[in-house]
């Protein structure tokens, strides 16, 4: 019996194999968690004293914001793996994650605006958190535009990986620079592992389901998109071979 390295799973053929089995479960799990979390959260939790029913947007806003940042971190890790080990699947996964991440960023910005109008009296404020999310959104757009602009897939993977790394440093710097620039309206973190008291338990439990649902949904979408990218790559290779 041979011991398999984890990198074996990144071989495109093996990747297509195991993701084919995992994908339905990931989508199913996402559907179950989101259904439970959202229905529980929307219909079976009390209204909050001051915010009324608007508090329930937390079940979309917090998980989307969480995934918007984690998607970028996942892209950073995948880019590093591409630069170091040159696994094509890794580069394609980073490419696949960007549109999902940008959608999460948009969901977070949009739900925040919808909640902000009744609560803060404005859709948008130049608050540090809001501003850094807008900057993150711009970084996503630049990254995707660079992928779209380069024909050669390997060079595109190289250049976008470097951009992702440099962009991460600057995104982080912007995150703290805007803190300095303006004091915020936004409340502190809703969930932290190191805090004794987070959001009240009634809201907390369905929120965990919603977060699990978003994580699984992100995972499933990235796998699906990566599979599509691999198939596109194979199709291109086939067409090139037949064309000769």
């Amino acid at each position, binding site marked *: 019996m041979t011991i398999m390295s984890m990198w074996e799973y990144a071989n495109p053929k093996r990747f297509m194999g195991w993701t084919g089995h995992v994908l339905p479960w990931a989508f199913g799990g996402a559907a179950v968690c989101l259904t439970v979390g959202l229905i529980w959260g929307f219909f079976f939790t009390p209204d909050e004293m001051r915010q009324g029913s608007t508090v329930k947007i937390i079940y979309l806003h917090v998980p989307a914001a969480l995934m918007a940042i984690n998607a970028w971190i996942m892209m950073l890790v995948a880019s590093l793996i591409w630069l170091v080990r040159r696994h094509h699947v890794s580069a394609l996964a980073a490419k696949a994650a960007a549109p999902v991440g940008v959608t999460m960023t948009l969901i977070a910005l949009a739900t925040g605006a919808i909640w902000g109008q009744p609560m803060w009296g404005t859709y948008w404020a130049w608050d540090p958190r809001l501003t850094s999310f807008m900057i993150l959104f711009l970084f996503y757009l630049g990254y995707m535009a660079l992928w779209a602009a380069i024909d050669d897939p390997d060079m595109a993977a190289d*250049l976008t990986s470097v951009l992702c790394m440099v962009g991460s440093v600057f995104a982080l*710097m912007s995150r703290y*620079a805007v803190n*300095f*620039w303006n004091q915020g309206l936004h409340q502190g973190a809703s969930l932290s592992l190191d805090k004794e008291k987070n959001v009240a338990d009634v809201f907390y439990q369905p929120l965990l389901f919603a977060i699990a649902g978003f994580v699984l949904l992100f995972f499933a979408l990235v796998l699906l998109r990566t599979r599509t990218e691999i198939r596109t790559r194979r199709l291109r290779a086939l067409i090139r071979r037949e064309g000769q």
Partner: protein
Amino acid sequence: MIALLHRDLLLATRAGGGFGLGLVFFLIVVVLVPFGVGPETAILSRIAPGILWVAALLAALLSLDRIFALDHEDGSLSLLATAPIPLEAVAVIKAAAHWLTTGVPLAIAAPVLGVLLHLDPSAFGFVVVTLLLGTPALSVIGTFGAALTVGIRRGGLLLSLIVLPLYVPTLIFGAEAVRRGVDGQDTATPLLMLGGITAGAVALLPFATAAVLRMNLR
């Protein structure tokens, strides 16, 4: 290395090099702003530091795609890559040439244009200092962006989409230092942060620029 710097400076200042265009662009943006926001002195002097910084940033952006594109077209970039000096040094020199031909003139011209915007007299010094301190970062970051998009035809728009978000921290600390200076508050923190960004960018980004250039030339 000196020869390369000399060559780039010459190319930039001779006809068609675009030297001066950046300055004129700077002037035009500053002249256009009062048309947009109205001629009230109070408003203009309040927003003047920000306008000067944003305009300087856009003017610096304007000449970025020249840094590598022409050299890439006529093949001298490949020559530079095989030259005895490391590509990292080429990246530094290209950024330095860009800074000398855009950043320094912009910093010197800024107080003159500040008069047009009724900039508070106490802010003149701060505008010059922050621009001198911050524009090297703009040049180095821009050089990285230019290297990233050098192989792309009509990459100018893409270049600005990639580079402008990277300019955010520099802009925040630069404009904040001037604003605090005008209000008589302590400016040490934003100035230190601005200097830190510039120092960090100058020290680290040329490596990324050189790596990206190698990828593009492969």
